[in-house]
């Protein structure tokens, strides 16, 4: 019997647990269709960045206004274009087009900077037909005067407000840098999150040694990064009643399977699909299906969370024990460098 790959994420029935995560691939209708053909259960569109929109609006405004009405021979420098978009219109248009073209759920993603912006764009995404909304909560709090509790409070309040503003399911994609992430996860749930996406990968600064310029770069994930979401999904499964999606480091069917075992409702891929093309989704699903078949699992539902912290035979392995064992299993010296000597 072919195992049933369906799952439920954010209350949405998905035909498969592999979800296309926000990436340039989901920003293009053609590749979205390829991802769908390859078997994704849903697609998360790239983030609508409020900061970028604002920045661009102000930039365009300043460029178009610069030196206007100041010189007798040239009152302006550009034709007044009839209709142009510096706001979220292009994004919403893409959302609408994706919604019209795809059969699987389309999840909008939003990265805001102001309360007004979060709410405004959340509503716009809902109006444009998004099946769900993923809040991409990402801010580097650099002010030494601001304590972690304040940052947490801000995030929770934000989720609460967005929840109140829209009626579609709401996921929150967060980073792992909380002292007590399990507690934070619970607060996010209480604030109205239907799901958590673990974890956000940040743009990290880099230094160009030629120009001595600091240049933020996003590098693709590696399979070892899977372990962080694996841990937290396993810990949260059964403890916080929200949908869980694992993202970061899913490069092969084994990785996807591990996250599902730990308790993920959905597994998100981006880097692997960027590197190897949308067809990688098909590979993942084939591997998953073969494993399930070989071991006579009937469905993904049966598998989900079966190795969560609550369900596994060695719960401590997901907490401190994991660390202890890793240390002793390394060759002397190599462990101090803190990375996998296999280079993966």
């Amino acid at each position, binding site marked *: 019997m072919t195992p049933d790959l369906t799952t439920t994420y954010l209350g949405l029935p998905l035909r498969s647990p592999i979800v296309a995560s926000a990436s340039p691939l989901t920003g293009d209708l053609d590749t979205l269709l390829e991802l769908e053909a390859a078997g994704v259960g849903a697609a998360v569109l790239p983030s609508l960045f409020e900061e970028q929109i604002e920045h661009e609006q102000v930039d*365009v405004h300043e460029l178009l206004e610069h*030196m206007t009405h100041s*010189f*007798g*021979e*040239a009152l302006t420098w*550009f*034709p007044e*274009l009839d209709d*142009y978009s510096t706001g979220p219109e292009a994004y919403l248009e893409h959302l609408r087009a994706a919604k019209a073209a795809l059969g699987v759920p389309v999840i909008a993603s939003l990265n805001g900077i102001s309360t007004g912006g979060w709410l405004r764009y959340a509503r716009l995404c809902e109006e444009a037909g998004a099946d769900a909304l993923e809040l991409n909560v990402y801010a580097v709090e650099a002010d030494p005067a601001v304590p972690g509790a304040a940052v947490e409070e801000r995030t929770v309040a934000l989720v609460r407000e967005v929840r109140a503003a829209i009626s579609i399911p709401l996921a929150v994609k967060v980073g792992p840098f909380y002292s007590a992430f399990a507690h934070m996860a619970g607060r996010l749930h209480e604030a109205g999150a239907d799901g958590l996406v673990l974890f956000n990968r940040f743009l990290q600064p880099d230094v160009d040694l030629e120009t001595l310029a600091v240049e933020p770069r996003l590098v693709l994930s590696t399979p070892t990064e899977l372990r962080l979401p694996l841990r937290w999904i396993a810990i949260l499964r059964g403890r916080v009643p929200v949908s869980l999606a694992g993202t970061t480091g899913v490069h092969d069917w084994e990785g996807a399977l591990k996250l599902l075992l730990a308790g993920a409702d959905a597994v998100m891929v981006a880097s692997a699909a960027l590197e190897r093309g949308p067809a990688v989704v098909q590979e993942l699903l084939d591997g998953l299906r073969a494993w399930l078949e070989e071991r006579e699992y009937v469905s993904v539902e049966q598998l989900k969370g079966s190795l969560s912290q609550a369900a596994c035979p060695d719960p401590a392995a997901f907490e401190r024990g994991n660390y202890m064992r890793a240390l002793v299993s390394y060759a002397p010296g190599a462990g101090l460098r803190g990375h996998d000597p296999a280079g993966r």
Partner: protein
Amino acid sequence: MGERATVDGNEAAAWVAYRGSEVIAIYPITPATPMGELADAWSSQSVPNAWGAVPQVVEMQSEGGAAGAVHGALQAGALATTFTSSQGLLLMLPNMFKIAGELTPAVIHVAARTVATHALSIFGDHSDVMAARTTGFALLCSSSVQEAQDLALVAHAATLRARVPFLHFFDGFRTSHELSTIERLDEDDVRALLDETLVAEHRARALSPDRPVLRGSAQNPDVFFQAREAVNPFYAAIPGIVQEEMTRLAERTGRRYRLFDYTGHPEAERVLVLMGSAAGAAGEAVERLCDEGEKVGLLTVRLYRPFDAQAFVATLPATVRAIAVLDRTKEPAALGEPLFQDVVTALTERGGELPRVIGGRYGLSSKELTPALAAAALAELGRDEPRRRFTVGITDDVSGLSLDVDPDFHTEPEDVFAAVFYGLGADGTVGANRNSIKIIADAGGLYGQGYFVLDSKKAGSMTVSHLRFGPRPIGSTYLVQQADFVACHQFGFLERLDVLSLAKEGATFLLNAPYPADEVWEHLPREVQETILERRLRLWVVDASTIAREAGLGKRVNTVLQTCFFALTEVLPVDEAIAAVKDAIRATYGKRGQAVLDRNMAAVDRALAGLHEVEVPQVVTATAGRRPPVPATAPDFVRDVTGPLIAGRGDDLPVSALPVDGTFPTGTAQYEKRSIAAEIPIWDPSICIDCAKCALVCPHAAIRMKVFAPEALAGAPEGFLSKEWKARDLPGMQMTIQVAPDDCTGCGICVETCPAHSKEEVKHKSIDLLPKDEHLEVERERYEFFLTIPEIDRSLVQPATVKGSQMLQPLFEYSGACEGCGETPYLKLLTQLFGDRLLVANATGCSSIYGGNLPTTPWAQNADGRGPAWSNSLFEDNAEFGLGMRLALDAQEAATRALVPVVAPELAAALLDADQTTEAGIAAQRARVAELEERCRGLRTPEARRLLPLARALVRTTVWIVGGDGWAYDIGFGGLDHVLASGKDVNLLVLDTEVYSNTGGQASKATPRAAVAKFAAGGKRTRKKDLGMIASAYGDVYVGQIAMGADNPQTVKALAEADAYAGPSLVIAYSHCIAHGIEMKKGMEQQKLAVDTGYWPLYRYDPRHASAGEHPFHLDSRAPKLPLSEFMSREARFAMLGRAQPETAAELAELAQRDVDERRLVYEQLAEIEHEHAPDESEEEAE
């Protein structure tokens, strides 16, 4: 009554022209450009004409081309129109004769502008229109914005009926650019007046193979004359037709016009006759004088050609005894100006007792005609022996023609509220005022008027807005004279300008000040305090700059001050006004997005809290007054003439103060210390690497390098910075990088370019932009000393290198070009390389404006009094103009060569075979020529006398022909091509901004594919012309394509090689521009990206290498390392298309990338081509 709207004259006329046309050929020229821009914008938005079709709008290569296209369109049966001014109209004249000769209905709309004579002027008078009198066009004149709309329709209607083409004109700037509340026509009016039967008849006369005819024959003496006379009945019918169409318009709109309109006393004895916008001011004067019991009147001419003498005579009151005819043009040597002569003829032919008729000139180049001037002309008529010819509005102390004027004669109506605003171009004052007028007209139901006096400087440009509001249409066609409200949006103006000169008794004065209300008084200059007390002004302050900055609006203080204006003036109830301001912000900036709206709204909300009235003390406390416009040490001419111009008092200069032939001293920009930068570059010698790039890229020659012997530092002010010059070419020398703090615009290009940074703190560079106020005094003193350090001996340096060139004195300095201009660094470099032996022929455009617009010029002189001699002829003829200079030099050299052996045989060999390829060689030749001149002075022979004024022709003079892409690619291309083919030793420098920059960014053939530009609002679909390849095809033309920001050495080398090459040279220089939509301080970075993406390949084609085994085409830039999108995404001209029409943008971007790839392929192959044959004889000669 139609709907009301507040528009300017250009829009009013263009609206009608567009609705009544099928083909519109356009070309940019100030002040008519906006008409073409509007037509192009409407067409790209598919706005239909009155019959539902979208007109074809085509930009041509010149006005001559536009007229040709119109002529052709008319011949093929379309309704066609065009818009122009001044020189543009002159270029249309040949076609106008044809169009009229063939009895073709057409309308040309003209924003009347001064024709260039001793100087160019962008401003308004009738000299252009008067030059078109002989074309056979009917001439119909509008004197207000309302009329510009109404009579435009009358012209379109009458031409169809009359078959004679019409030139419909109104005054440039005063009417074309005045915002005014008018009653609008609608499409039904257009359809009602433009008779479709007549349109069908026009089509029936068109060329068609279905009913072939020949038109445009050549005729002989036998019949030409008779055929020319055959048109007479058509001309005779025109006045009747025009009056009928005016009547039909009146029936629909209630607005009545006649061929000649009379206002004033029904039994007037003294009458003014004039046409154009002066009718408004003169009408006010007549009304006032009539109220005072005088019998005076005003006759306004509307249909000027044909001049209907009968209607004219019939319009004059029978009682008239004296007439003053005012002409807004000058015809030197004529018996009188044209309108005067027409009036005299009309009256003479009437017969009977003739009134006395006198003729006066007024208003050349938009010189104001105020009611006081009109009154002066009427007063002159009242004298026993009035002057037969006069001028009014100037002081003519040479010919004594000018009338005395009563300065206290004011007629501004009591129920009109007048306001004046002083702002910067960059602070948005004018934009906000344009909005305010519309708000008051729309929300308040009042009639508004706005006229904006803008700057001819671009960097730090100043604006003065003149606004009026009242319950009736406003006919005061002159600047505000008595303001109820004065706003000064920049505190710094107070010490430079008399901003209160127009404030009337008890007026409100709003000042943007960085000081609180209880401190500001102490910071006001003495004159300002005095005026506030004398005229009992109410002073209000707001720190708009801080509020705007905090709201995220940067320098744009407009929203804050606009809100304060409404709060203080109560033209509208305050709450209503603020709501209207917010609505206007939404309407104006809605498209720009929520962030822009939010910031402006925040500024409105915070404005009133920051507005405070100042409790004015009863006494003047200031000790410091306004500073003089130029230093007392300036040369006489600069002090007596340039100074008043800088201070805005040029109107006061008498005729005798001005040169008779348009010749001015150079080197005057140094006296115009505008001090406009907020931040200036400050040098840290400890990390400087002597690269000289900062000085190279500075658009204003405001950061300079000198290399000098250590002894030169004697007497330096304490702390004067210098360091050892590291390069081995000049051992033991010191160097200094110095900013000119009052001349720097703060553009930041030098800092962006500086490659040297601190090892401890990377952000600290060898030059950093720092607040000027903190460094001004020190840097002023240092710069003053720096200028006294002797310039380096030119023979010691290698000029054709970056460092070498930057050791040399720039002779192009402190121009008023845009902050961060991409053109001026090339010109400055040119003057460093060849400035002391340079003749410049400059095409009209940005470079002629920042180069030659009064009050000052950046073209300068060295200590020996040598420097570039500069002239601007026209836009279209610049290559020919420069060639003429070369021919003159060659002719003089040839004459000299013949004389030298006769006069000084023993000097002949050295003089005639001198090597002048190096600086030392040139210096030696100058010495020889001086000796020769000395010899000539001592001899009494005719040959010596002839030789003396010619001798200097033996020193090599270089001719550079400079202009923009509008000149080189479009209007001047034919001449440029011819000059390139001449084989003569001329150098052409094309400052390629890829658009018509000076007129506001219209597309040229240099505009790249996929860019948005005016006249290409939907993105340019065709690729850029490859001018360099066209030139190199001649084989004997040196061609260089350069981009300073990408490769400095290649730039310097190409200019030096071009100059050294003894045949024609063409250098095309990539010039970033504000019309690209970039942050200007990143201009050089964009140039680098342009080259790195293959957008702008660098190459040199040197004909001297076109011989055995050599490669004349040298591709200097490497294969593109980045996709074109990296360059395009950083410029609004490309990026905007992506936001407006994403699909078109993507398609064009792909084609643009293909253009780059293909061109690279072709260029790489060209670079491989070896030339086998030795150059032919003519090329040898050229070398």
